[in-house]
């Protein structure tokens, strides 16, 4: 039997396949399609301190091999999450990652304090410094190395739980922001969130999305995500979780070769609810066919020219 397990810092996962934030809700709907105890982990929808209804109007635009979304962090807020969603997630029998978003440093601090308290059944906190669909916080913070450093630094001492820092690709140098995350005590970086994009309805002469712009996800962005994972793998020393356009097991292997210790699956689940299960099955077959003892041995094995 091949060993699919991976370790990201102090946390081990049954396999490298984690459901990405915003593309799995809190696991309820996907649990009707997939035995959630078989997947590596699940990352909650981006949470904020207070409930948010998100952005108005049309929130999705189809693009070539991808989609734009402008959900804008619609979520029930921290309290409702703890009461109604976290218990459900805990019952799924998989690793739980909570995606934390905020308008201000203070928001992040409050949430990290609460979610990261020793008792909470949360394995990892993922700091979302990269949502492109809100006007304050998030991507604004994640756009500069200083912003990332200061935010991570401001929350680091508030919890003993691992802190993953989810970064935006909309920067000149991803390795600089990744470095900042590392320097401030982040346990891993998650690369990448969506690329900022625009779709236009020629008939109405308006943006398709009522938020005007949105975040681009799906296979279209995979080459950019892979490049950023590879670039950071060479330049930082904390683990990397790869995200962006992963549709199948071959994509997972590409991300691992590029330097990812684990991966997150976003848009693929929207298209095929059981995508994660199929990917895990195919990863097993791949590892067997290639006589890999441990899938984790692939991480960073890409040989550059």
């Amino acid at each position: 039997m091949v060993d699919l397990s991976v370790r990201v810092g102090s946390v081990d996962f049954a396999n490298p396949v984690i459901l990405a934030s915003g593309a799995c809700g809190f696991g309820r709907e996907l649990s009707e399609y997939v035995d959630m105890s078989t997947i590596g982990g699940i990352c909650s929808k981006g949470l904020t301190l207070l409930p948010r209804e998100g952005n108005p109007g049309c929130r999705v635009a189809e693009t070539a091999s991808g989609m734009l979304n402008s959900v804008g962090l619609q979520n029930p807020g921290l309290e409702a999450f703890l009461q109604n969603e976290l218990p459900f997630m805990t019952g799924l029998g998989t690793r739980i990652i909570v995606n934390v978003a905020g308008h201000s440093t203070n928001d992040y601090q409050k949430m990290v304090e609460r979610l990261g308290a020793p008792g909470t059944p949360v394995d990892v906190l993922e700091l979302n410094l990269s949502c492109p669909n809100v006007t304050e916080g998030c991507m604004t913070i994640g756009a500069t190395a200083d912003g990332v450093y200061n935010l991570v630094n401001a929350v680091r001492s508030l919890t003993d739980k691992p802190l993953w820092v989810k970064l935006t690709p909309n920067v000149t140098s991803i390795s600089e922001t990744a470095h900042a995350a590392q320097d401030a005590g982040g346990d891993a970086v998650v690369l990448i969130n969506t690329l900022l994009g625009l779709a236009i309805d020629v008939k109405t002469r308006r943006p398709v999305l009522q938020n005007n712009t949105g975040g681009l996800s799906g296979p279209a962005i995979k080459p950019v995500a892979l490049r950023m994972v590879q670039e950071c793998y060479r330049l930082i020393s904390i683990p990397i979780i790869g995200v962006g356009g992963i549709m199948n097991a071959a994509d997972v292997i590409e991300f691992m070769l590029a330097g990812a210790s684990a991966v997150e699956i976003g848009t693929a689940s929207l298209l095929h609810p059981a995508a994660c299960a199929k990917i895990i099955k195919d990863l097993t077959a791949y590892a067997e066919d290639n006589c890999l003892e441990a899938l984790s041995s692939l991480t960073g094995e890409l040989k550059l020219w």
Partner: protein
Amino acid sequence: MLKEYEAALVEKKLLGIGNVLLTFACEDIAKMAEPGQFVNVSCSLFLKRPFGICTVDPIGNTFSIGVKEVGAGTKDILTASVGDVFSILGPLGHGFSFDGVKKIIAVGGGTGIYPLYFALDKAKRKGIPAICVNGFRSWQDAFFLSECEELSEKTIFASDAGDLGVKGTVMDALKLLQPEDLTDATVFVVGPEIMMKKVSAWAHVHQLSCQVSLEKRMACGFGICLVCVCKIKSDADNMPFHHVRCCKEGPVFQASEVIW
């Protein structure tokens, strides 16, 4: 466990200009679907496309959807051949509620007639009388005329062009209903948003319970991405509305809850 189906197209039937009834082989959907629910169907573009379920044959294990060509996705779906296989999720969402429904006034416009046909069919089987009010652009665009008549006690058609039934919209057709037609009736409306809004207002005036089926652009269709939300009235203190998933809590909502 629910699953994504690989379903073969088994029949294509042209109904009217640009409107085609597609029948797929899929036992589970045929057996589980309720009127007002929909399926999300793969096409050559990136996202699946949602369509209301129109008929089911739980014996023959098929179901059908009516598709109107409006863009690249529907075009692609309509150029498929019998035998082609589609990835399909469904049945999805919450359909019409028949709880306490004693009589139905089904008001349909355009492709909205497809899910209503399924509702009329169920009503007939449950012995619930139905009145059917359908609006079309013109006689050429019309379809399901005799089918709807068969399932309804009374049928009124309206056409913008005036060449079929009443000249005008379904609002003009509704005026032809007699007071006794309205007694104990629940209104089911599916059609363009503006029509559903007007019919809802009409139902409100006549103190009739009314259910509408909203259409939003979707991605997943089963509740995980939150791109398809509708504005639904909220009783929370400092919150005039909630964003509720059209694909999961809907597509059918009580008209009284909808913020248009």
